[in-house]
């Protein structure tokens, strides 16, 4: 039995002119919360995109539960249990909240879970409202609900706090924490809000210019001089 849920081996992806993800090998244990941080252009989102199937890597492998999924389509990965949210809210704006959640539920035939999920994410009262009419924070929460509706084993959250009011942030933090315990979920989160990162992450991976430069517990990272250096000046390491 493999004790790792997800593993990347020497993942590399280049776009014209630069290498966004450079030889990244990371592994994730079940039911852990890992935060990936780093300055702009560090390759965090590209890494998430590679793991979830948005892009194909130039080289390297992605192993999920012991299976090589490097060339799987996004929908197939979702079927296996890899789900995600996006930096910019990615929902169905003209459909109602209920319909938004229904679509991912259908892919696993779990339609009876609808009310349950709406309940967990406190969207029950707004279920007949078009998603575009929700507050931005609620839209972020709805997107998480949609990601959860496919009953993932691993959930990628790409900047869940981006554009969210400070007032709504704690709601989202609490939701993420709850999810982890109640759904036995592995969570990988990319986030700039360091309060949030240090409140929820068990492990923090720091990326810079496509490479992993530090990996450890929040305390280790907090006291890591190189990391601080990078955040303050972004120079070569």
């Amino acid at each position, binding site marked *: 039995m493999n004790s790792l849920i997800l593993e990347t081996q020497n993942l590399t992806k280049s776009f014209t002119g630069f290498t966004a993800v450079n030889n990244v090998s990371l592994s994730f244990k079940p039911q852990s919360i890992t935060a990936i941080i780093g300055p702009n252009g560090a390759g965090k989102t590209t890494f998430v995109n590679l793991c979830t199937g948005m892009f194909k890597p130039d080289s390297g492998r992605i192993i999920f539960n012991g299976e090589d999924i490097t060339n799987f389509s996004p929908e197939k990965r979702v079927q296996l249990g890899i789900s995600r949210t996006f930096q910019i809210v990615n929902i169905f704006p003209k459909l109602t909240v209920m319909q938004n959640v229904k679509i991912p539920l259908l892919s696993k035939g779990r339609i009876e879970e609808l009310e349950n999920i709406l309940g967990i994410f406190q969207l029950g009262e707004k279920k007949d409202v078009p998603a575009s009419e929700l507050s931005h924070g609620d839209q972020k929460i709805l997107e998480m609900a949609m990601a959860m509706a496919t009953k993932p084993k691993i959930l990628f959250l790409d900047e869940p706090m981006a554009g969210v*009011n400070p007032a709504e942030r704690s709601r989202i933090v609490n939701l993420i924490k709850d999810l982890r315990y109640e759904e036995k979920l592995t969570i990988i989160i990319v986030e*700039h*809000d360091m309060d949030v990162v240090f409140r929820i992450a068990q492990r923090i991976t720091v990326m810079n210019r496509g490479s992993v430069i530090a990996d450890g517990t929040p305390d280790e990272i907090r006291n890591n001089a190189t990391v601080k250096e990078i955040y303050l000046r*972004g120079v070569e390491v």
Partner: protein
Amino acid sequence: MTSILTLSDVNSYYEKSHILFGVSLEIKEGEVVVLLGRNGVGKTTTLKTIMGLVPKITGKILFKDSTDLLKIPPHKRAKLGIGYVPDHGGIFPNLTVYQNMKLSIKQSKSKSESTQIFELEDVFDLFPQLEHMINRLAGTLSGGERRMLGIARGLLLNPDLLIIDEPSEGLAPNIVQDIVEIINKIRSSGVSVLVADQNLPFVEKIADRVYVIDKGEIKLSGKLSELSREELEMFLTF
């Protein structure tokens, strides 16, 4: 000193998401002001708000204490004398270096009004390496060269205020040093500069004053030397 740009209680929104919360700041004539903050805290949105590139804005943005920018379209703001160098470089990759620069020269503010006049030669003095590559396609330049060209383009507009987004991002230390010198030269020519950045050592070398921004709000402001180093690092790291 008169003020070049004043933001009072500015809020910015993209669709449903509220990004800036009551931002107020001021840039005086001849100053280099830096907006400090981590990624994703609203630096770029502040600059885009000044240029009019954000769909919904409330509050007041005054240019030279007299012109309310809120109802003025971006291209007219440029012609009023605000140069903008966005974080992706602000160059047109399908044009040659020379065409990139020519574009700005043609749109440049009428010269009689400008405090300092930047002509092509002045720019080549500042960026000698550009002179050798005027016929190259801008898209083939290296990251540092693009950044230089972007700033050169901004200067050729002969602005009273030059706005530069993340000038040090992703550049090698020696190039960052070049940029420090360039910004200091720009200051000495009398042009005001607003920079958004997070690289503290770099900022220390250029800033007259800083505003520290976090989660869409201005948290600290003043001369860098007068701010608590600890607080600063907290906002910039974690």
